């Protein structure tokens, strides 16, 4: 990267990285196919335009718009994968996975095991979510804990364009079903300077230390990783060194990286947008406590969404999920 580039503002967004991942995967592997509501060009290339141009370039057989039938979408993806294809099924919003739960939980996740390894379901379920648009209770939930609790499914969420590209490419190539969760409010935020090269991969199950620190470990993912990076910057100004660990793969999660960081700092804060109660943070806090009980300087702290439906009204929506300010307050609390 040139000095001029470094001086300039980043231009590349997560949405561009995902669109490029599609283009590159489709060009490289004829077994990659996709289906979902409005995905093909006559329907506009998807609500986020991620697949725009794809059906024209790669054909209507490989890029298919569907009826609003999430069970049928998931079933078709599962069936095609049983016959050797690598389908990317777009379930437009994460709340809509609820109407396809039988297909995802009883079938996609379990067919490999129940068949004794004779069949497998190498699908990617791409789904968008995240509060910030005043969509209320049925359009922006984070439901990753449900899937993380289901053996047989991997769960990913990226917080940078490079990770979005590299994780999605790895998810498409993975021999097992992967739920790839995309955050809508950070979709179009410029974060990087160049689009990833076609060979770029981020291995599933490997966390990223996005900022090194020595006093506090923040374990997080998705939009909360963006907020945690901002909070860590502010904490540094106050003389607290916070390490930000972005899980990237929520299940199965990278215990080694998290435990190594926790061992180093002795203080752990887990942050996610999903409801805190019974969330992914409970699992991480529990494992850290089990493994490092005598070494921790403070009890593990969790921040998460409120125990309510996601609200509509702006002040309520703002109050619902953690943000950089609340993460900073929590950092200070456990660093004290």
């Amino acid at each position, binding site marked *: 990267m040139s000095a001029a580039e470094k001086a300039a503002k980043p231009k590349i967004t997560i949405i561009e990285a995902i669109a490029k991942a599609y283009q590159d995967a489709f060009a490289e592997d004829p077994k990659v196919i996709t289906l979902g509501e409005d995905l093909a060009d006559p329907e506009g290339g998807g609500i986020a335009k991620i697949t725009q141009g794809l059906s024209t370039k790669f054909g209507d057989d490989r890029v298919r718009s569907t009826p609003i039938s999430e069970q049928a979408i998931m079933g*078709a993806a599962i069936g095609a994968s049983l016959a050797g294809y690598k389908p990317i099924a777009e379930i437009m919003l994460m709340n809509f996975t609820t109407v396809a739960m039988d297909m995802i939980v009883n079938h996609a996740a379990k067919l490999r095991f129940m068949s004794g390894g004779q069949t497998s379901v190498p699908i990617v379920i791409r789904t968008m979510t995240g509060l910030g648009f005043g969509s209320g209770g049925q359009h922006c939930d984070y439901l990753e804990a449900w899937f993380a609790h289901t053996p047989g499914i991997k769960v990913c969420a990226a917080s940078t364009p490079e990770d979005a590209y590299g994780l999605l490419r790895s998810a498409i190539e993975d021999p097992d079903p992967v739920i790839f969760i995309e955050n809508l409010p950070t979709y179009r935020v410029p974060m990087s300077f160049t689009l990833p090269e076609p060979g770029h991969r981020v291995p599933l199950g490997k966390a990223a230390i996005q900022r090194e620190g020595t006093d506090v470990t923040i374990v997080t993912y998705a939009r909360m990783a963006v907020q945690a990076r901002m909070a860590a910057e502010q904490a540094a100004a106050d003389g607290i060194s916070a390490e930000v660990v972005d899980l990237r793969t929520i299940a199965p999660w990278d215990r080694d990286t998290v435990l190594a960081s926790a061992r180093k700092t002795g203080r752990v804060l887990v942050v996610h947008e999903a409801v805190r109660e019974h969330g992914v943070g409970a699992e991480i806090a529990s494992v850290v406590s089990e493994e490092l009980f005598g070494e921790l300087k403070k009890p593990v702290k969790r921040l998460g969404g409120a125990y309510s439906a996601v609200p509509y009204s702006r002040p309520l929506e703002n109050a619902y999920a953690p943000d950089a300010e609340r993460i900073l307050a929590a950092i200070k609390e456990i660093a004290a």
Partner: protein
Amino acid sequence: MADKQLEADSAVLLEIYKRAALLKANDERARKVILSGQIAMVYYSYRGQEIIPSVMGSVLRDDDTICTIYRGIHDMLGKGFPLPELWAELAGRTTGSCKGKGGPMHLTYPPKGIMVTTGIVGSSAPIANGLAWAAQLDGSDRVSVCTFGDGASNIGAVHEALNLAAVWKLPTIFVCQNNLFAEHTKFEKMTAGQNIAGRAEGYGIPGVRVDGNDSEAMYSAFAEAVARARAGEGPTLIECMTFRFFGHNFGDDDSYIPKEQKAAAMEADPVPRLRARLIADRIASEDELAAIEAAIEAEIDKAIEFALASPWPEPDDLRFDVFAKEIAA
């Protein structure tokens, strides 16, 4: 090509009978084995429904796929599931087709196109569409069959799947085995319109109601649906009228089935009926059929012997087949 034939001739009828005799004998043995305590398993008897999958097996090729349901061992045997791997799986042994991890409700055998067996009512249909989409992408004329019961005709997954198959013109064949009871509930009580085949009209696809216990009628209906699907003309919904002789799952109190209805159905047992027809029309002799049946019993004996002599899985096997890579110990 046998699969382009739309009428069941003598050779086909004999072929159908061989399969039906195997299915009937296997069901009788399964109930006997459970009662004797040799193998403990959940079991959904299909006795009385043998003709439908025997016809399907006579029309389909090995590369055609099938997604079936918990009451589906007849569908699988009709499609060629090998008896030793079947019985070892029922017995929960490592030599079972699914290494003992699936059991009677999740039997799978891809070499014969038996891709999914689901314990969830109606869920065979959406997955069958994906296998049909793959056939389209491959440029293959293979077809994808899903079977389900009359109860599944009222679950959303089946309707979503019928619509998608119609709009994508998929080579999916929807085979509803209407045995007149959804679990313990009478068909006419919970199924509006009492005409599952008629629902096809709403999706703009052919819907056929056929006597599933009549080999020739069933053959014509199914062979035509397969020919349509192979020719790229899209899906068909076939409602095969039949009857199950026993309760929903083996051991349940089947008092919800009226005694007279059950007695009449058993009196009209489709398997001996076909057998008598073969003899009357001189398609096979009594001796020939007896020899076929004896050979089937001997094969079942051998399969059960193999199953019961096979090793049980080890607890450590839980770490394998969750993902492609093993789970750390």
